[in-house]
């Protein structure tokens, strides 16, 4: 397929994306920008005592601008524009230049940035007025704790009122939030440590992703979900037993239907140790699990994991939100999953082929509504917890997700933004100036887990309070009472079909 690729020298049709503007009046020539930019955009010419910039390399990560002591730097969109054309947009043209030069598959980072509808913003929440009075979370107890796992059909008690039903294993979350799966390799060790410590402090979980678990982090086991993906990197008995739950990764919202690979250049000593593969070798996760071709096969994997953990851990199955997500979810429940994680088409990624990221999958809001509906209709909703991810930005999105039927949400990008991510979407370069999506020790050092984990704790604590306020406003005092309560939602700017799928009424109805 790539056999016609030819090397073309010095013929780049593309212009820069961004322009670095330095206010000479403000600049004190401290050269911090030169030092801070891993992309080597800023250069200082000693002889002439002037700064030079290479706009071509700038990814607009804001590192230099934010750290500049006199705020002398501004990064702007490069002003050279193509002749206006609603069809042949800037990116449509630039992508062709890139591909005709390199012959490569376009690779992007972070979630789908295109202007598809954001359904969170087309749903409005209810509040109590006069009757069913609202509850003030400052005065009244509010329950935001949720239990993730399979729930029994019925509960039985002995004559003394003691529960005799053996409960399937559950994961307790103090807030209906988890940190989404992000592998060590895709993100740095310090970023992982910040996530792990924050999850531990908050009484929630983070997720190892498919890169194995660093020995230093086994101590956060009670706040860890370990992942098993098709590459099985770093998967062994100790690892499987290290966390409170195991997640089988079938799909990812940013790249449904395809696998992933960590290029050998990102597999240094430490990543090699955690993934248990040689230094410098590509870590290739094939698109499917090679032992799963059916729901029965999925069941075999689920139960092999239950067997090796003595049925003590709930098994999550993560799928991408695709057209027939509801049917897939139904099969997944029947395969024995204790929780399903559905990742929407805006879900983030360290690297995904641009065309897949931007064109494959469906919005999480629609997938969630149809999955919850289908599982209810089939009478199996109680058998599984439903977690959603892929574009959850704030506490209102969480409350709406729960009202649509989710048990909890997973946040990836939002958590990284709390750690300093500036959404430049250059993760794939491995040169993240904020120490997140990089394995370069000099850059990783910039993210201090001691400081940064507190930002995550703050973020989730603030959201927790906001969730309580929104719940209280609706006259509800527990997250559990909101789940699937779609009467608390109204649509705005939606058509009949969208309302039908979301299972909500129009505002004013």
């Amino acid at each position, binding site marked *: 397929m*790539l056999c016609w690729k030819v090397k073309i020298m010095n013929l780049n049709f593309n212009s820069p994306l961004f322009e670095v503007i330095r206010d000479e009046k403000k600049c004190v020539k401290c050269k911090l920008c030169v030092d801070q930019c891993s992309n080597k955009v800023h250069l200082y010419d000693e002889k002439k005592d002037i700064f030079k910039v290479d706009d071509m390399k700038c990814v607009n990560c804001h590192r230099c601008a934010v750290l500049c002591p006199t705020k002398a730097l501004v990064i702007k969109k490069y002003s050279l524009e193509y002749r206006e054309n609603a069809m042949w947009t800037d990116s449509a043209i630039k992508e062709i230049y890139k*591909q005709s030069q390199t012959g490569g598959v376009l690779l992007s980072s972070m979630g789908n940035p295109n202007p598809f509808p954001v359904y969170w913003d087309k749903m409005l929440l209810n509040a109590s007025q006069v009757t069913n009075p609202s509850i003030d979370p400052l005065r009244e107890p509010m329950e935001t704790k949720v239990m993730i796992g399979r729930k029994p059909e019925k509960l039985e008690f002995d004559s003394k009122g003691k529960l005799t039903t053996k409960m399937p294993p559950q994961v307790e979350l103090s807030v209906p939030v988890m940190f989404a799966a992000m592998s060590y390799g895709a993100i740095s060790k310090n970023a992982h440590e910040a996530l792990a410590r924050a999850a531990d402090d908050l009484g929630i979980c983070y997720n190892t992703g498919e890169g194995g678990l660093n020995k230093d982090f086994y101590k956060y086991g009670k706040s860890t979900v370990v992942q098993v993906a098709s590459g*099985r990197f770093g*998967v062994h*008995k100790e690892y499987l037993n290290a966390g409170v739950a195991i997640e089988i990764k079938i799909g990812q919202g940013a790249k449904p239907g395809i696998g992933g690979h960590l290029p050998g250049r990102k597999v240094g000593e430490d990543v090699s140790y955690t993934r*248990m593969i040689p230094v410098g070798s590509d870590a290739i996760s094939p698109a499917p699990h*090679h*032992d799963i071709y059916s729901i029965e096969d999925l069941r075999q994997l689920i139960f092999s994991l239950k*067997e090796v953990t003595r049925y003590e851990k709930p098994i999550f199955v993560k799928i991408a939100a695709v057209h027939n997500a509801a049917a897939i979810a139904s099969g997944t429940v029947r395969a024995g999953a204790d929780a399903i994680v559905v990742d929407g088409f805006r879900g983030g990624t360290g690297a995904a082929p641009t065309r897949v990221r931007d064109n494959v999958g469906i919005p999480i809001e629609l997938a969630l509504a149809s999955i919850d509906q289908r599982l209810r209709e089939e009478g199996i909703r109680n058998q599984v917890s439903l977690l959603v991810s892929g574009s959850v930005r704030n506490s209102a999105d969480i409350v709406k997700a729960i009202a649509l039927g989710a048990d909890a949400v997973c946040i990836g990008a939002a958590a990284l933004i709390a750690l300093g991510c500036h959404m430049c979407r250059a993760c794939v370069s491995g040169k993240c100036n904020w120490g997140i999506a990089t394995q370069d020790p000099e850059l990783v050092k910039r993210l201090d887990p001691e400081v940064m984990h507190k930002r995550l704790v703050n973020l989730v604590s603030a959201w927790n309070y906001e969730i309580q306020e929104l719940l209280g406003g609706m006259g509800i005092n527990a997250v559990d009472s909101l789940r699937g309560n779609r009467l608390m939602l109204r649509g705005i700017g939606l058509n009949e079909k969208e309302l039908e799928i979301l299972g909500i009424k129009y505002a004013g109805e």
Partner: protein
Amino acid sequence: MKTIDALGVYYRKLNDSIDSAIKTDKNITLSGVFGQRYIGRGLSKGVKIKIQGVPGNDMAAYMDGAEIEVFGNAQDAVGNTMNAGRIVIHGRCGDTLGYSMRGGEIYVEGNVGYRVGIHMKEYKDMKPVIVAGGKAGDFLGEYMAGGAIILLGLDLAEGEEIIGRFCGTGIHGGKIYINGNPDKYNFGKEVEKVSLRDEDIAFLKNHVDLYAKFFKKDLSHLKLEAFAKYAAVNKNPYSNAYCSN
């Protein structure tokens, strides 16, 4: 040595009773095994299990040092994601044998199914090895990232093929040794034939001798120099496939 009668026992109960039995005696025999899954899953060094009958899928999944000897055939996904230990099968074996195994050894007396050794990997001194006495199905060593597969092709009937199609598709590490000259087969495009060195012969000898010992066979006639060795064309197959956007 304790014997557990497995006939008609549900797999979950069987695996539980193995767990309790090995607390007092690490050497156990299972008789009447008939398709029960996950036998030996995750078991550690020191445990030795002899199996009479046909164990079910995912035998020795995530196994971590135990030794299993099967007196009969085995089903699919034996040694799935296995970390360490040894499996000896006096019979044939199904598909995806040794899927993603990272360490340990598997010896199969006879033929093995499709996609054997798929995504096997290695790490430092953990180098998994699969030795099969007969032939293998399509996609042998697919996506292989490390370790070694040795295919002896003993007692093949006239016209019987030692491997199927697409051997080594997607391989990016590890080695595949095939008895004879399999040039005529349709290999994956990511694999190439490489020359056999002295250390390869020593490696083959070591494992062939063990095979002969386990299955009580005289293999002195095998010409190890005549084995063909296959390895990945490229350790980083995708490094040039992309351009960042």
